Structure formats: C-alpha cells, structure tokens
C-alpha cells in the first residue's frame, strides 16, 4: 500500500472546466456537492483506503523566527496571488494508478448546473520509511 495526499486548492491550481463560484450555484447544487464529498469519503472508509481528510480556512499567515528573545515575525494575510490550499484527503491505496483513479472521481464532484466541476487536484506521494531489506 502507498499513501497519497490529494490536495484541493482555493487558488493556484489551473482553472477548472465548470468554474462557477459556489455562491452562484443553486442551494440544491450546493447540497448535492456536499453530499458527493461525504459519500466519497464514506466509500473510501468502506474500502479501507481512507486515512484522513480536513478542510482549511482560507485565512492564514506566514510566520518566521526573528532571533532569540524576539517574537516571531508574521506576514499576512496571504497575497491574492498566493497558492492557497483548501483542504486535503490522505488515502492509502494499492498503487499510483488507484490514487489517480480516486482523484479523478473526486474531481468529478458536481457543481453549477449539477455538472462535474472537473477541478484540478494535486496528487502527491508520501515519502516513506526506508525498507528493512535494502539489498
């Protein structure tokens, strides 16, 4: 099994095909989308492939160390151009092809007009612990 991170972006990914802001959908379309996401996670729990999923607030800030005895420096809120992560799902699957297949399904979540959003999702393999047998 291999773990993959499916990353969803508020900003920074290429524009999706069905690119309409959510508040311009009908309330029923919003509900259908929410339901699809819940069902997707539930299905992966059922197949034993779900690890974790979290949504992030769009608000955030950059922080860095500024020397001993000084409070950390913050820089924010994020600039409008910054790549902005909206949330993630961690899956544990047989292989890369399965990860792509699931990301494709997640990207098909319905949006405006009840049609798939075709949203671009990022698929990133986890770096793993070194194997016990290495030669």
């Amino acid at each position, binding site marked *: 099994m291999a773990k993959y991170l499916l990353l969803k972006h508020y900003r920074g990914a290429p524009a999706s095909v069905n690119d309409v802001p959510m508040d311009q959908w009908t309330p029923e*379309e*919003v509900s259908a989308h*929410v*339901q699809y996401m819940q069902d997707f996670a539930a299905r992966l729990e059922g197949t034993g492939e779900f690890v974790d999923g979290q*949504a992030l*607030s769009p608000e955030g800030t950059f922080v860095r160390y500024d020397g001993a005895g000084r409070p950390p420096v913050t820089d924010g809120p994020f600039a409008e151009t910054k790549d902005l992560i909206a949330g993630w799902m961690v899956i544990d699957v047989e292989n890369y092809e399965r990860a792509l297949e699931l990301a494709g399904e997640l990207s098909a979540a319905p949006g405006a007009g009840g049609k798939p959003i075709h949203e671009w999702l990022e698929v990133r393999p986890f770096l793993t612990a070194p194997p016990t047998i290495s030669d």
Partner: protein
Amino acid sequence: MDEALLRTLAPTVIGTLVRRGADFTAAEDAVQDALVEAVRVWRDDPPRDPKGWLVTVSWRKFLDAARADASRRHREVRVDDETMPAAGEGVDDTLQLYFLCAHPSLTPASAVALTLRAVGGLTTRQIAQAYLVPEATMAQRISRAKRTVSGVRFNQPGDVATVLRVLYLVFNEGYSGDVDLAAEAIRLTRQLAAKTNHEEVAGLLALMLLHHARRPARTGPDGRLVPLAEQDRSLWNTRLIAEGVDVLQTALTRDRLGEFQAQAAIAALHADARTAEATDWVQIVEWYDELVRLTDNPVARLNRAVAVGEADGPRAGLAALATLDPALPRHTAAAAYLHERDGDPVTAARLYAEAARSAPNLPERDHLTRQAARLNAQLRR
C-alpha cells in the same frame, strides 16, 4: 455490563484510594487500569458488588505499581494493605475531584481531559477519539495535567465557576467517536448539581438540557445545519425541556442571577414558542441585557443585536450591530441575515458569501454558502 454504572463509580473509587494514602496521580492511574479490566471481565463475570470489586482491584493495581516503582528506586514500599486507614465518613470525594480536575493551574484543554477521565471514567482512547487526536497525545496531555495538580491538596475547596467552565466546554464539543460528549457533560453536571446547592450549577444544567432537547432538529438527515427558525419543533424533546425549565425556575427563585441562568432563560423562551413567529423576542432581548450586564461578553452583545433585530425590526438590529467589532465571530453572518430581513438581498448575498469564507466549521460554511446561493438564485429570476 453496565458501562454507565462503571463510569459513575470511578470518581468515588479514586477518592477511596486517596483516603487510603495513595496520591491522586497514582490513584487515578490505578482506577483507570481497573476500569479497563472491568470492561474486559464484567461482561462474562459481573460482580455482585461492583464498587467493592473496583476498590479491591484498583487498590491491588495501585500496590503493584507502587511496589514496582519502589523496586525501581531500590527502596521499601511504604503503603501496604496493613497500613490502610479506614474510609472517611461524610467526605464527598466526587466533588473534590471536580475541583481538582478543573484546577485554575490547568489549561482548559487539560482540565477537560482530566475531568473526562477522572470524574467521567472515560478511557484515554475514548477521550482521544472524541477530540480527534492520537491516543498517545491525549495520554500525554492527561499525565502532564496530573503532574500540574500533584501538589494540590485533595481536600482543598475549589471554585465552582471553574468547574462550570470545564463542563460547558465539554458540552459544546458535541459528539464524534463513540462518546457523546454533550450527553456526558449533562451526566457530569447533573451529578454535580446533586452534590452542590449552587444556582449556577442548576443554571448550566438547565442550559444544557434545553439545548440538548433541540438536538434532533438541529441537523437535517444529510447532516446539514437547520437554523432555529426552520427547525421542526415537533422533534424537540419535551421531556428534556420540561426538566430544563423546572431546574431553571427553581434556580431563579433564589434570586442570585448568573450568566448560565440567563442563557438558560433565553433557551427556555425559545423552547416555549410553539412556532418561530410566537417567540417572545422582547423578553429575550431583556435577558440578553442581563447577560451583557453580567458578562460584558462581545458574543452576547452580538446575539443581542440579532434579537433586537427580531424584537424591534432589522434596522434596529443593524444599528446595534454597528456598535460592535466587525472582527467578532459570526458578525458578518448576522449582518447578512439582518440585511435580508431589511429587504436588501444584494448586500445580504454578498455578506453571506463573505461569512462562508470565514466560517469556523464545515456545516456552518455549507449553510452560509447555501444562503448566498438561495439569494443569488432569487436575484437571477
């Protein structure tokens, strides 16, 4: 096996061990081990005297641990069955445990975890699941909390207000995992109310009961949030409402008002209305005035502004809102609601979408997005 009974016994047994000479940290560990063993063996072999069983097994676990500890340090174990003092009479150990676990030296998160384990008798695993953290993390949080209070004398009187804040936090956490934290908070507050004669304990219990009564109506079948005005009131639990109102009325007769009684009074007025339209908003505003006077809490002021919008019209609500810090949580959502009531769907839709972006949780975000979507769909027609 009656897990509820088991959990009720936990604080008493800890108290017994402490009076026999164990320190709190060791006693709590021993009882936790005994509870885990009880869950394992009681199903097939339930004891005739559950409390006696727990005391015996916990004491044995305590002695085992103390001996192991002593041999590690190459010295004699001083506590033994022979030196066991008689159980003290008339001391309420459970109440003392409440105070200790909510000690002001603890952070709120630590006090919550320690209370759920020592007073609530939950296992570390259950608490970890409920708060969505790894078990090892929760175990660490609990042992640090125990170290923090290790110097506190067990029989020191504590402050009820700190206990109430902890129980309030537990209640507000809702439920995830296999433990219903709201129900657990009610159980612990009910137990506390039975042991104290404090009007704010009663106030908090009433507040919890009245809110818990509405829970079946608060979410739709698909998990979506249903706002108070749209809830199916026939789903409200009338037995809990009756109990909550009763507890509150008894507390109010003592004429020592506090923030939890005031909040419970507001919840009682909502529970009293057979329809959303029948809500007595004028009285609710009066109770918010009391609440603001008692706490000077900005969130209470925000809720008051919304209530003013219902009692005196949306313009009055917006005027009250304008005096508050726009950075307050849910300020934008309240403004959106009041603007819609004021007949300005364009501003309302924009504000709902903005509020959705800063929503603190997913159900609220989805709800606010739906509100924006609903208004935008109307505007397109």
